[in-house]
């Protein structure tokens, strides 16, 4: 049974202060990119994180592996609160926590060969004997459907899909347990997306990996994830098992997100009633009072202007932060 919790995030906050001016010390407004979120991830599962641009989903991913120092809250990974670790202590944990970035063009060093790219994390973490590292790199490339003769080539010689595989190879080189994948397929063609997603699934099965899969593509997130977290302006609006999210979306924002995803079937698509969200996501510097989604919500009530709803469980595994579902 895979019930062990590998990662638990508690009241995590990440604020960025806007500094401007010559002396750059004015701590005036803060951007509340991630504003008090909590969730759990079970080992061997995939949790999807969805939301529009500016919802804070990338910041969550980066804060979890401590590329950003959290402002408050704890990140408990395998029983240790990594939010409190210093850089040196973090290094040991980071081997187990790897990240895959969105842009396969910008996230590989153009001056390193594939061999160097895949070997670098092993060198940093002092894994394997130096003469075994090349063998390990070859093994991983094979696993990912890349040719070992690619080892001597440079990133610019590869297509987007191949580069994303190299990024995956780099992450896998150090035998991680948890991978944060930030929009790993958004920059790729549909047919290549499918290849990469299948690779993700195969690797998960083979190595019992846990993923936090960040994407704005709800159809893709639903496909790969066991449960889905919907974020809006730094807060979690809804957490649901991925099977439930389409059948029974509770939060008006989730409903609108699902309704916005086009379905490749003209019969369904041309007869579908769309919930169109008005306008854009608001700025997270001046947050509206009460519920953050209220300005775009068609069900907004008086209470929504005053009180910010908290995330409450409506049934096992399904929670929502909305006054409509208050008992």
């Amino acid at each position: 049974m895979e019930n062990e919790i590998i990662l638990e995030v508690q009241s995590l906050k990440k604020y960025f202060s806007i500094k401007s001016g010559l002396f750059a010390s004015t701590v005036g407004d803060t951007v509340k990119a991630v504003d008090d979120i909590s969730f759990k991830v079970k080992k061997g599962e995939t949790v999807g994180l969805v939301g529009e641009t500016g919802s804070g989903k990338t910041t969550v991913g980066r804060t979890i592996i401590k590329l950003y120092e959290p402002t408050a809250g704890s990140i408990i990974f395998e029983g240790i609160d990594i939010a409190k670790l210093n850089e040196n202590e973090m290094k040991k944990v980071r081997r187990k926590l790897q990240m895959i970035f969105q842009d396969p063009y910008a996230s590989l060093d153009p001056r390193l060969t594939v061999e160097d790219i895949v070997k670098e994390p092993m060198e940093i973490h002092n894994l394997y004997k130096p003469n075994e590292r090349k063998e390990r790199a070859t093994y991983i490339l094979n696993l990912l459907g890349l040719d070992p003769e690619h080892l001597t080539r440079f990133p610019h010689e590869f297509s987007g899909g191949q580069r994303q595989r190299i990024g995956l190879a780099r992450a896998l080189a150090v035998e991680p347990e948890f991978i944060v994948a930030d929009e790993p397929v958004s920059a790729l063609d549909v047919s290549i997306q499918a290849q990469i997603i299948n690779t993700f699934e195969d690797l998960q099965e083979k190595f019992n990996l846990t993923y936090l899969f960040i994407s704005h593509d709800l159809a893709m997130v639903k496909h790969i994830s066991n449960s889905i977290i919907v974020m809006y302006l730094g807060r979690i609006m809804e957490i649901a098992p991925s099977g439930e999210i389409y059948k029974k979306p509770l939060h008006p924002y989730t409903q609108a997100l699902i309704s916005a995803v086009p379905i490749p079937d003209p019969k369904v698509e041309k007869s579908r009633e769309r919930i169109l969200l008005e306008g854009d996501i608001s700025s997270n510097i001046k947050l509206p009072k009460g519920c953050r989604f209220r300005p775009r919500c068609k069900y907004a009530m008086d209470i929504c202007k005053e009180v910010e709803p908290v995330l409450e469980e409506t049934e096992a595994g399904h929670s929502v932060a909305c006054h409509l579902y208050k008992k």
Partner: protein
Amino acid sequence: MRGKMEPVLRIKDLKTEFFTYTGVVKAVRGIDFSVNPGEAVGIVGESGCGKTVTGLSIMRLITYPPGKIVSGEVSLDGTDLLKLSESEMRKIRGAKISMIFQDPMTSLNPALTIGFQLSEMLILHKNITKEETKKKIIELLSMVRIKSPENVFNQYPHQLSGGMRQRAMIALALSCEPKIVIADEPTTSVDVTIQAQILNLLQDLKSRVNSSIILITHNLAVVAGLCSRIIVMYAGLIVEEGNDRQVFDNPKHPYTWGLLRAVPRVDEQEKERLSTIKGLPPDLMSPPKGCPFAMRCSYAMKICFEERPPYFNSEEGHRTMCWLLDKRAQKVKRDE
């Protein structure tokens, strides 16, 4: 439908090539299609299949060197655009045929206000006064559902969000009520919620302005709602064309099958493994002599590698470039 209506745009044997140091890239290799008045046609395919080059060729925006339209005919209401001089073409571009580009950040001038950029087009093509121009622009901006159009008129592109910029681009493209609007991946760089707004807007404008739309995208789901006819391109060729029902419900080309099964559907009941199209599109510097898809096709026969298939018509308006439809070929079933 066909025959009754005279198409507004007719493309015949269009070929566009790029002359680079390493060789000639045959980006578009002879395509024919037409667009009827008020019709929305979707062009779908992977990166590098020639869909954007098709759009740019119609607009005559291929720059030489390295690109060149080497042959063909693009006739708009009977005039062959490829035979016009550059100054004649300028009168048509924007006025009768316009384009919405993928990236609204780079396709609007960052140093000029939205109002100025929109008025440029009207001043160039319409003989109207300054006051009338401003009134017309504010009308256009509210038509594309921009709130407070008076403010946006004086704003610069960086002050607008991605969705607003894309709407300003749409307003720009529609300002002279063109006969045809070519929208090249208009929703690729925006969020799904904004994508839904923009598709809804295009749908609405199509019925209001009665322009024809050519929607270029790699996402089949995007064309499903808006377009009544779908063109599937691969390696610079049209491999399948039909109306929405024919292409989605009864596709004939293995490439279309692959495209349809590669995307997960948000309404899928059970989780199925995504099917992939193995391999990569062919190198267009030396395209294969047979069917361009043969080396990735799991149904490929001997003939597929030797001779390029002709078009087979399966129904009225539904044509497919695939040998599987030949009478002599073994019947294959599309695995769902």
